[in-house]
């Protein structure tokens, strides 16, 4: 293990100049305006105000990333805002359309259930074997249709890999916000075997979805049904399903993040997160640990919200495949040993350039997808105010 503190490449991150930061932010400012006010955008003054606030918010956060040279904190502001505003906008739209958060059978029969990306890994095997999509939606009929959402996910996954879970997922922000509340974790020792939880849930749910011919995770285990929509309980089984959603939400999304300061639902449970990890293998951006600088202090490991660093992986100089590229380890490392990296390049060669390239791609996606959700949530709030 190398312990030299004074390697020639050791240059503590320093803030950028104001002008340079502004110049680097300019493309994202233009992109924010483009995404918020593209042709076809509502001309309702409330919608325009929501879009303007969103564009400014996303641009300011990107500017702060450029100015400070740090990522995690600013990304977290965006992500928590996304996690909080998504249910507000979504529930409002559901209640407006049907008067309830429950999905009535009529809506399922009509194929009007909004498609959620969490169902994607559950649909693949039944679709491959029987050409049947086991989801009560439609393939093309609306903006929430299966084809549109899968297409969007495919395109964004090409760009982000597992970064989806830190820049696009509209659920993870709630637990990330909860994890940010306490100053210190009450539970600090977490059995590393919990990391296999999402893979176990993924395998079980894929097999169960094939056997029962329904999106089993959505029907039985998704904690976020508690804050979005659920199948209207018609009998004792329906009541039990809804009780499971609430218990899992309370436990994995509220209580455990407060106790551990980790994204416990993502780390221990989310099958989509496990599925998305596979795409980290094709993503060109990654986090590496420069062994010539690393002191094995475990600061990065403790900072990781997703248990994506272990002693073994640090010794190998890399994050685990579940790394969602949130930048927490890079920002936390006191010796700049954790670095952004482009595959194929040498580890300590211009990591800031790798960070910039990743952030331009990831933030563009965040503005396009998350920005529209934030604007929708803001619109709802402005509407009520």
């Amino acid at each position, binding site marked *: 293990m190398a312990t030299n503190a004074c390697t020639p490449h050791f240059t503590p991150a320093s803030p950028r100049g104001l002008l340079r930061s502004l110049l680097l932010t300019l493309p994202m400012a233009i992109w924010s305006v483009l*995404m918020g006010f593209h042709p076809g955008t509502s001309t309702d003054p409330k919608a325009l105000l929501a879009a303007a606030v969103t564009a400014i918010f996303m641009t300011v956060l990107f500017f702060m990333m450029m100015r400070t040279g740090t990522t995690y904190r600013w990304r977290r502001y965006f992500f928590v805002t996304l996690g909080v505003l998504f249910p507000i906008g979504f529930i409002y739209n559901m209640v407006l359309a049907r008067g309830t958060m429950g999905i009535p*059978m*009529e809506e*399922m*029969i*009509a*194929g009007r259930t909004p498609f959620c990306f969490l169902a994607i890994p559950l649909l693949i095997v039944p*679709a491959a074997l*029987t*050409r*049947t*999509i*086991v*989801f*009560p*939606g*439609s*393939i*093309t009929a609306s903006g929430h249709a*299966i*084809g*549109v959402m*899968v*297409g*969007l996910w*495919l*395109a*964004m996954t*090409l*760009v982000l890999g597992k970064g989806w879970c830190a820049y696009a997922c509209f659920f993870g922000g709630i637990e990330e916000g909860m994890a940010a509340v306490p100053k210190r974790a009450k539970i600090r020792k977490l059995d590393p075997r919990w990391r296999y939880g999402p893979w176990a849930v993924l395998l079980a749910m894929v097999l169960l979805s*094939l*056997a*029962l*011919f*329904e999106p089993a995770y959505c029907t039985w285990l998704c904690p976020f049904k508690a804050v979005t929509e659920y199948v209207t309980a*018609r009998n004792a089984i329906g009541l039990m399903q809804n009780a499971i959603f609430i218990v899992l939400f309370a436990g994995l999304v509220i209580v455990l993040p407060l106790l551990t300061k980790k994204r416990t639902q993502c780390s221990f449970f989310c099958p989509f997160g496990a599925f998305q990890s596979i795409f980290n293998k094709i993503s*060109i*951006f990654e986090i590496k640990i420069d062994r010539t600088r690393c002191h094995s202090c475990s600061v990065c490991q403790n900072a990781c919200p997703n248990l994506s660093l272990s002693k073994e992986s640090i010794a190998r100089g890399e994050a685990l495949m579940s790394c969602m590229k949130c930048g927490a380890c890079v920002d936390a490392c006191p010796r700049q040993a954790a670095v952004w990296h*482009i*595959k*194929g*390049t*040498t580890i300590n*060669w211009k990591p800031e350039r*790798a960070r910039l*390239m*990743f952030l*331009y*791609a*990831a933030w*563009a*996606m965040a503005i*396009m997808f998350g920005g529209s959700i934030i604007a929708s949530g803001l619109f709802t709030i402005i509407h009520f105010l």
Partner: protein
Amino acid sequence: MKLRAILGYTAAGMTVLVAVLVPFLLMGVFSNGVAALPLHVDEVYSGGPTARAIQMGAYSINIHRPVTPHFLQSEKPFVQLDWTPVSTLPPHVSDVVDVDGDGQPDLRVSFDVPQDAKAPLRVDVEPLNPHYLPMRNVGKEGFSRLIARVDNSILVRVPLAHP
């Protein structure tokens, strides 16, 4: 090593380009690609394709192809009948329906059509053919056994005794 670095940077640059192209081009390309796949939504939800229609004066009854659930699916095999359009239905419907088109009546279906579109519906189905199962005062018990108003139709799903 240098070649790998060049390839790496090229791929990184392509990723940024892809990100810019997503909302303008790629999202549509991928979405259309997914939509073009030979896939269909599970017929337990959709009710399956319409096989034929019977004209009943002002309204018609669309008869769907029987649906057979898969493997361990908890629903029974069923056939879906749509009364449409709702606006032309009488306050009480009681129709004898030849489902399989063999010229013999198979079911007598009776239900009330309330003015209020959100009012709960109840249906009685008397099988005239042992191939179908009876339903008495059924609302929405499951995907294979229900009456529901969907858009401008009233759907009745009758469970089959044998698939």
